[in-house]
């Protein structure tokens, strides 16, 4: 038995950390958030493509590296509260792959970083199990209104969930209307898309459901891994700050009440680490257990990150509430990731379903 990553994956993780610390540290992330209208760093996206990162969620035979590698990279993305559509593109690329040959042209362009494609699925602004879809794609014509499409205003193509299945809609088609839907996470860009025009149905009802189940699992795992990274880094920032900051003549990190809070932050974070990597390993090696373990990982990592990143703000005191210090970047992203990719409420239900309850 071994919990630590093997050498290859360790290397991948370290490489990712080096790259992100260099290219997407909190100053860079802040610049993207404040200035880039697209909400991401196009040059960095191209670098990620070049280094093969955009193929990460594909099956191994198509250039992917399995769930453990995916988790390791996502973990690092979480550590920098990475802004941009990286996960969204991975999920779309996997769906395009699974949709079969017709979709592989777009898949290849997405993986090469030539086209930005995301999934467009949600039709309600509530956190409810999706009811009947209204989006339809009949006779090559798409009619759809989708909510909170990630980076939808700047995508080159969307893969749309419709009543008939999954449809590719490339831009600029006529009838592509995007309305920005800014959320409290200033570094994630969502949009309402109103689509009316030609599109290509690439997977019918049943296959589409199977594809989306795979995507949902990968999404939940990836979000959980990012949440782990957020918690880990938020705790590190807190330890560093409280060791420096003094009150009553001593570092505030020497106060026992604060120490106990940090101990609880560690408990939550380390437990997230165990849960996330065990789920990832199960996806690769123990598929029968994976549904439950992925849901468990996200259902733990989400509330844990909310709590840990919230504590990071609190224990930073006044500066924790400022834009200038980093804790809010982590807190906001924790909130986004907890609410999306299967909210905690949905994951809890999924855990029960996985047990037949």
């Amino acid at each position, binding site marked *: 038995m071994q919990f630590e990553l093997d050498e290859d994956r360790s290397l991948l993780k370290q490489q990712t950390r080096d790259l992100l610390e260099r290219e997407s540290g909190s100053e860079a992330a802040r610049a993207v958030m404040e200035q880039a209208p697209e909400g991401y760093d196009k040059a960095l996206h191209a670098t990620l493509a070049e280094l093969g990162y955009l193929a990460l969620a594909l099956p191994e035979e198509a250039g992917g590296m399995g769930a453990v590698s995916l988790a390791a990279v996502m973990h690092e993305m979480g550590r920098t509260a990475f802004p941009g559509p990286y996960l969204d593109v991975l999920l779309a690329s996997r769906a395009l792959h699974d949709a079969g040959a017709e979709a592989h042209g777009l898949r290849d362009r997405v993986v090469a970083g030539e086209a930005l494609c995301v999934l467009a699925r*949600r039709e*309600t*602004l*509530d*956190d*409810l199990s999706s009811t009947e879809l209204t989006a339809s794609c009949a006779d090559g014509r798409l009619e759809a209104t989708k*909510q*909170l499409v990630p980076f939808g205003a700047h995508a080159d193509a969307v893969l749309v969930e419709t009543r008939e299945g999954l449809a590719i809609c490339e831009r600029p088609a006529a009838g592509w209307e995007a*309305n*920005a*839907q*800014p*959320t*409290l*996470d*200033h570094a994630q860009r969502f949009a*309402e898309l109103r689509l009316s025009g030609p599109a290509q149905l690439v997977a019918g009802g049943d296959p589409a459901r199977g594809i989306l189940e795979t995507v949902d699992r990968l999404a939940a795992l990836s979000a959980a891994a990012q949440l782990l990274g957020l918690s880990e880094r938020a705790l590190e920032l807190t330890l560093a700050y409280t060791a420096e900051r*003094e*009150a*009553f*003549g001593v570092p505030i990190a020497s*106060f026992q*009440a*604060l120490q106990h809070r940090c101990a609880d932050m560690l408990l939550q974070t380390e437990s997230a680490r165990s849960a996330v990597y065990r789920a990832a390993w199960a996806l690769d090696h123990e598929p029968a257990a994976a549904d439950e373990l992925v849901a468990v990982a996200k259902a733990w990592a989400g509330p844990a990150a*909310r709590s840990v990143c*919230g504590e990071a*703000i*609190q224990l930073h*005191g*006044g500066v*924790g*509430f*400022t*834009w*200038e210090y980093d804790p*809010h970047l982590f*807190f*906001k992203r924790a*909130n*986004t990731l907890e*609410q*999306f990719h299967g*909210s*905690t*409420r949905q994951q809890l239900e999924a855990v029960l379903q996985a047990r037949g309850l």
Partner: protein
Amino acid sequence: MDLAFTTEQEAFRRDLKSWLAANLARPWNDEIRNPSHDENSLVEVRRAWQRQLNDAGYLGMGWPAEWGGRGASVVEQAILEEELWRADAPQVPNFLGIDLLGPALIHHGSEEQRRRFIPKMLAADEIWCQGFSEPGSGSDLASLSTRAEPDGEHFRITGQKVWTTFGPWSDWIFVLARTDAEDRYGGITFFLVPIDQPGVEVRSIRQITGESEFGETFFDGALARREHIVGKIGEGWRIAMTVLGYERGVQTMAYPARFEGYLSDVIEGVRRNGTLGRADVREKLARLIVENQVMRSNGLRTLANLAAGESPGPESSIEKIFWSEYAKRQSETALDLLGPQAQLTTEARHARPDMDWAREFLWARAGTIYSGSSEIQRNIIAKRVLRMPTK
């Protein structure tokens, strides 16, 4: 035991409500969503509102008539604060001046100081901000290092203050500065300093909500006149501490009113999204209602004690922890129950017109930090209420 308001107090509330209905042009929530506003114009809305309140005699109500007050009881003041929240009125821009500096001048200032500063403060002709906290002294306020050195008829002030709420729009700042480096408490003096002078620079601090209500204020040999010292040299700490206690209790009914309003929005939201019947949703709503009612019960108790002439001792630490920690739970529950809708900021096309949960979710994080963090409040409770030993 008697938790009822008197006939006079009820009459005061009725009059106030009529006045508010007639005079408040629109609720604050509508103002801040008006796209034609920017931060500066919103301050002007608040300034105008303060003048309306002042003209109607609702500001500084508890002060002597001579200084614009009407000797109102603490209960009436609490009713005022409660109804202002219920009506979603703008907060007056000079709230720190009125809550803290006003009482300081009335109790510790000179006649000249009162005459010079109070009328303009009430009329919002001069906006005040507070210069107590420093970057190096948050929880440990007495360790402040901003220094004031005598220079003829003036003192020259050098140092840095933070969390100067409304700093960017202020005309004056009241400052605690060190006049004796050796005497931790007795070496602090309370100065009134004009901001529009070469030695003072105010910078905005951007908050995690994206707004910049706070500022930091840099003093580089800024001039304060000797006659603008409140109390005597070296009395600053004592004055600041008593003044910080004066206004406690007056907000005691405002917090539950504020959060009760927000809570109604959550209830409406789950009704709209069809989940009001779900047992998990019902449990979460019920817990919020319970906590809110308990907060109100605590508030009534504090108010009753104040009305009975007891001082609001360190027990006010309990109230501070209660409302600020509740605010976090409430906004988190709102986000959980209302779903992605509640993530949208006001600029979003589908943002709901009633409650800005995205902002409240972030803003609630400040409550447990400012005015003495929850950790400081727990220290106070342990030491001063429970009398637990120090090592």
